[in-house]
């Protein structure tokens, strides 16, 4: 093995362990996605809620901000105390880190809906539910999506660290690389797919986001 350079080793590695890498890839992706989806389920309603009760907004966003400042390794360890080893811990960590971008973006988007538009909605006799569903949400979607996109890219990075609490994923390969004799190729074999995943996620969600933004002739 030592007579090959890092790139040749990398090619050799993918040839022999391809299905394994693929398995770790999908696992890594699913852990990130589950965390972000949970955060979206909690964060979007919360963001809408605080947009209508401005006094609460400082508190909630403040708390989310504080969560964000905890270093990810420390966060993983703290949650590990409660949830134990394994995937649950990583999903919970991803969830917590995803809250801020999602809540904040939802809040900002909702607050920035022009008062004039809301007033005309009220003038048309809309109930507040109708107002939310037909006016505020459609105008906020693109920004909310941007928050989710942000969260997912961060989540993919955090999941890589999750290998330390035994969750598996591509971080496993990176850690093995740091332990192995000539681990350079192994580190790349773990790091490159991780980066690739983040880029693909970013581009895909960016595409959806732009789609939601585009002016619709019919609406």
């Amino acid at each position, binding site marked *: *093995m030592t007579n090959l350079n890092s790139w040749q*080793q990398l090619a*050799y*590695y993918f040839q*022999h*362990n391809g299905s*394994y890498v693929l*398995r770790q890839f*999908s*696992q890594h*992706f*699913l852990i990130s*996605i*589950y965390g972000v989806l949970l955060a979206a389920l909690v964060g979007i309603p919360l963001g809408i809620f605080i947009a209508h009760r401005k006094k609460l907004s400082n508190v909630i966003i403040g708390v989310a901000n504080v969560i964000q400042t905890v270093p990810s390794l420390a966060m993983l360890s703290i949650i590990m105390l409660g949830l*134990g*080893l*394994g*995937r*649950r811990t990583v*999903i919970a960590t991803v969830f917590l880190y995803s809250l801020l971008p999602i809540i904040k973006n939802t809040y900002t988007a909702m607050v920035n809906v022009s008062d004039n538009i809301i007033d005309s909605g009220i003038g048309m006799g809309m109930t507040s539910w109708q107002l939310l*569903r*037909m006016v505020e*949400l*459609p105008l906020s*979607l693109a920004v909310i*999506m941007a928050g989710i996109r942000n969260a997912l890219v961060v989540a993919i990075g955090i999941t890589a660290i999750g*290998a*330390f*609490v*035994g*969750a*598996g994923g591509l971080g*496993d*390969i990176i*850690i*093995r690389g*740091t*332990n*192995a*004799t*000539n681990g350079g*190729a*192994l580190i790349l074999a773990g790091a490159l797919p991780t980066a690739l995943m983040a880029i693909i996620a970013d581009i895909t969600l960016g595409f*959806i986001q732009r*789609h*939601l933004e585009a002016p*619709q002739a*019919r*609406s």
Partner: protein
Amino acid sequence: MHKIRQFITSCGLLVGSLLLLSGCRSLGILNHQSQTIRISSLSTTESQILANILSELITHETQNKVTLINNLGSSTVTHESLIRGDADIAASRYAGTELTGTLKMKPTKDPEKAQKIVKKAFKDRYNQTWFPSYGFADTYAFMVTQATAQKYHLETVSDLGKVADQLTAGVDSVWVNHEGDGYPAFKKTYGYDFKKVAPMQIGLVYSALAAGKMDVVLGYSTDGRIKSYALKVLKDDRHFFPPYDASVVATDQILKEQPALAPLLHRLDGKIDLDTMQTLNFKVDNDLLEPAVVAKQFLQEHNYFRKGAAK
């Protein structure tokens, strides 16, 4: 309205593809307790290979699914994971380590006695079943490069004593604080100290030695890199390091829930000798094969150790 519909459609697509993905290979996130057996392993190559062998054996021979809990830092964490119910099976427990570390008992030099003591103690104290050894013992061993060995005429750990004050030693960071068979006890038994002792991650000691960063290191006797770097292992002439026979440990609970599991795990009793383990380690550390790949190959070669199959 149009946008909302679009949003819902795209969300639906996303969730749909997710379901498809997880359908292909269920992760066991939601049905944590039902059919998924969780195996914990250390961050060492050896432990990960053994964990993957168990995982492959279980998924191939039974309907159960397996989750690996990888990269645990020390045997203490592994122990905790079983006690707390984060894992059902520990892939590699070493009798010597547990005897002094977890059980806080006196070290013994007799492997069979050690095995007997931990087996009983784990049953009584923790309701865990200690399986018979895989067939190899992993022990700490001091090693040097061939050049150093020739220069100072080193054969045994006692020989090191004469020149120890000029040498820097790289050792497993876990070992430094081991009770009974750790660094303080070592100094007492052999009666000398190194110029400097650098605790490090066990996987790094071999390359540190080969690169000349360390003069002598304490590593695992089963490591494949002893072969790849042609290192000289010094004989433990005072029998300081207790026997570290490697075994599977499973909680009694999982063995009860899955009656087929115990006979399955017993298939591996004594099947992996020192040479085999070194070869497997070598494949992972040197040939860039994943532990999962090596484990599968190994089991296929031996037909999953089915009864009646020729070895």
